[in-house]
Each structure stands twice: as structure tokens, then as C-alpha cells.
């Protein structure tokens, strides 16, 4: 057996179909044994690529919105992603939550003008879905300031939770923009702010405990 014959037989050889002649050739030929070793190494290392990366939070957020819109998720909306604590609303959070409700109400009451309608329609034009809540970055800064003295791993966890919460808010806002009459999207937006509020409350409560 020569090297070309061995290489032609390699696909089946690697699947386990081996002859004594092929085996003898591998043992006596350094070039073919080197090739075989390399191919086995490549194949074994490939398995390490199986679960290498993780998709961004955007994927789940968009998927969840779609599932709710299609009615595949049917239970009342809750997002117990953090510890299940029952918080009273901090005054600061009544503003963005109220803003979200105003936006939702405004969108629901919006009546577009009909064709040929000469009367100015007494409509409530929906304000931009980017609501007049306190700037997200300012709230984020407050949260990160509250946890600044914690261990680095906790600080990183809060930062990660904030990023996910902000991504959730952005996705929910887009869902409301695209489907202003959809109840699930509206509820999702309120839920998204609730999640952010829970992070704030957790950060502040634990800061108070530490004093």
C-alpha cells in the first residue's frame, strides 16, 4: 500500500473501517501517521466549538415579545428575574411608570383623521414612545453609585442586569411603536420599567443594610 492509496481510504478509515494493510502502513509511514494524527486532533478539537458563544439579551427579549403577541405565552405578566421582593413604589419611579401609562393611554385614544374629514380631529396624538422619564443614564449612575463600594463581581452583576433591563426597555418601546394597540406590548413596557425599578430598589436596600 502506498500513501495515495492510504489517503483515499482515509474517510472510511476514520469512521472505523480499517484493514490490516492500512494499519500496517500507518505504523510504518511517518507522513501518513502524521496526517492521521492531525485529522484526529482537528476532529476532537471541533467539539469544543459546540457551545462557545452566547447570544445577546436582545434575542430573548425579542423572542418573548413575539411569543406574547402570538398568544403562546398566556399567563399574567410577571418578571421575577430578581429576588421576589414586594416593594413600594419610590416616588422617583412613579414618574417613568406614569409616563408609560400616559403614553399607552395616549396611543389607545389616538383617532387618526378620516379621508375627507374637514373637522380638526380632537385627537390625542401619542407622544414619542421615548417617554419623558428621568434620563436612563442618570438612573443608571445612581444605581452604580449605590453599589460602587461592593465587591467587583457584584458591581459587574449589577452592570449586567442594568444592560439587560435597558435592552428590555428598548425592545418593549419598539414593540409598542410597532403595535400601539397591542395589550401585551403595552404591558411589556410597564413590566420593563418594573424590572429596572427592582434593580434600583435592590441596590438601595442593600446599601441601607450596609450602613
Amino acid at each position, binding site marked *: 500500500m*502506498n*500513501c*495515495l492509496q*492510504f*489517503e*483515499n481510504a*482515509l*474517510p*472510511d478509515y*476514520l*469512521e472505523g473501517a480499517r484493514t490490516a494493510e492500512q494499519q500496517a502502513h500507518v505504523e510504518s509511514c*511517518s*507522513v*501518513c501517521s*502524521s*496526517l492521521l*494524527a*492531525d*485529522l484526529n*486532533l*482537528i*476532529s476532537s*478539537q*471541533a*467539539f*469544543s*466549538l*459546540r*457551545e*462557545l*458563544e*452566547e*447570544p*445577546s439579551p*436582545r*434575542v*430573548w427579549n*425579542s*423572542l*418573548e415579545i*413575539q*411569543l*406574547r403577541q*402570538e*398568544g*403562546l*405565552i*398566556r*399567563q399574567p*405578566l*410577571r418578571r*421575577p428575574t430578581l429576588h421576589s421582593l414586594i416593594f413600594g413604589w419610590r416616588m422617583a419611579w412613579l414618574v417613568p411608570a406614569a409616563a408609560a401609562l400616559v403614553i399607552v393611554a395616549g396611543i389607545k385614544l389616538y383617532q387618526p383623521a378620516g379621508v375627507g374629514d374637514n373637522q380638526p380631529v380632537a385627537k390625542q396624538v401619542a407622544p414619542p414612545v421615548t417617554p419623558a422619564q428621568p434620563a436612563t443614564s442618570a438612573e443608571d449612575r445612581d444605581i452604580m453609585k449605590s453599589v460602587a463600594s461592593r465587591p467587583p463581581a457584584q458591581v459587574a452583576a449589577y452592570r449586567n442586569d442594568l444592560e439587560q433591563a435597558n435592552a428590555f426597555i428598548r425592545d418593549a418601546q419598539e414593540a409598542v411603536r410597532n403595535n400601539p394597540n397591542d395589550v401585551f406590548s403595552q404591558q411589556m413596557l410597564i413590566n420593563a420599567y418594573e424590572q429596572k425599578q427592582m434593580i434600583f430598589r435592590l441596590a438601595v436596600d442593600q446599601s441601607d443594610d450596609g450602613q
Partner: protein
Amino acid sequence: MTDAKRPHSSKLSEAEAIERAKQGDAEAFEFLYNLHKRRVYSLCLRMTGNVASAEDLTQEAFLQLFRKIGTFRGESAFSTWLHRMAVNVVLMQLRKKGLPVVPIEETTEGEEEGTVRKEPGAPDERLAGSIDRLQIQRAVDELPPGYRTIFVLHDVQGYEHNEIAELVGCSIGNSKSQLHKARIKLRELLRINRTEKAGRR
């Protein structure tokens, strides 16, 4: 095809999550998503080479699966069902874009020389022990799309040749020969990369 090892949750098992998802439970859907997202996403990313496409296809694969979860009866592993769905979603996308899913079986012209050149006294340039995960990841990303599909399905994801043949629409023999060519090509790429790296030092 073997299933990937799955983490055990003290709160929910996969079987419980599937039953609850059938009832519309949001937490159950999220549990199933988190359980399988890495493998599905890695599959999509390896086969498309593009992060945005991979995320869109991941979302689409889960969406198609969750739409049908009411019909899942447990005859096969849930993960098998999901990954098969993901592969089909990716292959459909590749076909839509006109990208080759699998190379056409080539004639033997030019292949008669083979890869192995017998050079008496030539140094033995094994890769063995000298490649890491990042190197092989980069080399896979450089493979032509058809070779990459077969390699990812077989060596990365663990599909058997008969399954690959059914998925991509080729013969079992074609699947085996293309896999072999993909590995040979990877070997070349890894050697080139290693030589380039050595030259920069």
C-alpha cells in the same frame, strides 16, 4: 447524535418546563431557551459566520419550535428536535442567499496527487498538541461554506452522515468525502496560520 450535557436545575426540569410551556408559562419558555441557547447560537454562528444573522436565526429557530411545542410528545429528545429545527432554519437561509450548502462532488482530476507527498527525509510537521480552540475557530470560519456546513454538522454538532445526507440533500458518500476534504483544508489553514505566526516572531 449525542446530546450535549445539560445542567440540572433544582427549580425546574426540562420535562416539567415543556409541559408548563404548553400551558403558556413564560418562565418555562425562558428556561428552555436558556438551556439550549448556546448550542443553537453557536451552530448558527459557525455556519453563517455572521453575528447578526446568527442571532436572527437563533430567534427564528426557537420561535418555530415554540410554536409547535404543543405537538411535542417526547418520543425523541427535545434537544434533538430543537437542533434539527435550527439546522433547517440555517440551511434554508443559506439556500435563500444562494450560498452553497454542500460542495458538488468533484471529479478526481487534480486529486490524484493526494495530500500526502512522500518526501524522504522531510521533517514531520505535526499539528498534534499545537492548536487551541481559538485557532480552530478561526480556521473553521475561513472554510468555504459547503465544507463548513458538513464539518460543523459532523465534527462540531455530532450529526451522523446519514442524518447530514438527509438534512442537506446529498448522498452519505458525498457527506463523508466532503468532511474529509474539509478536515484536510483545515489542516492546511492551521499550518499556514502557524507558519505566519512563527514568521512574525
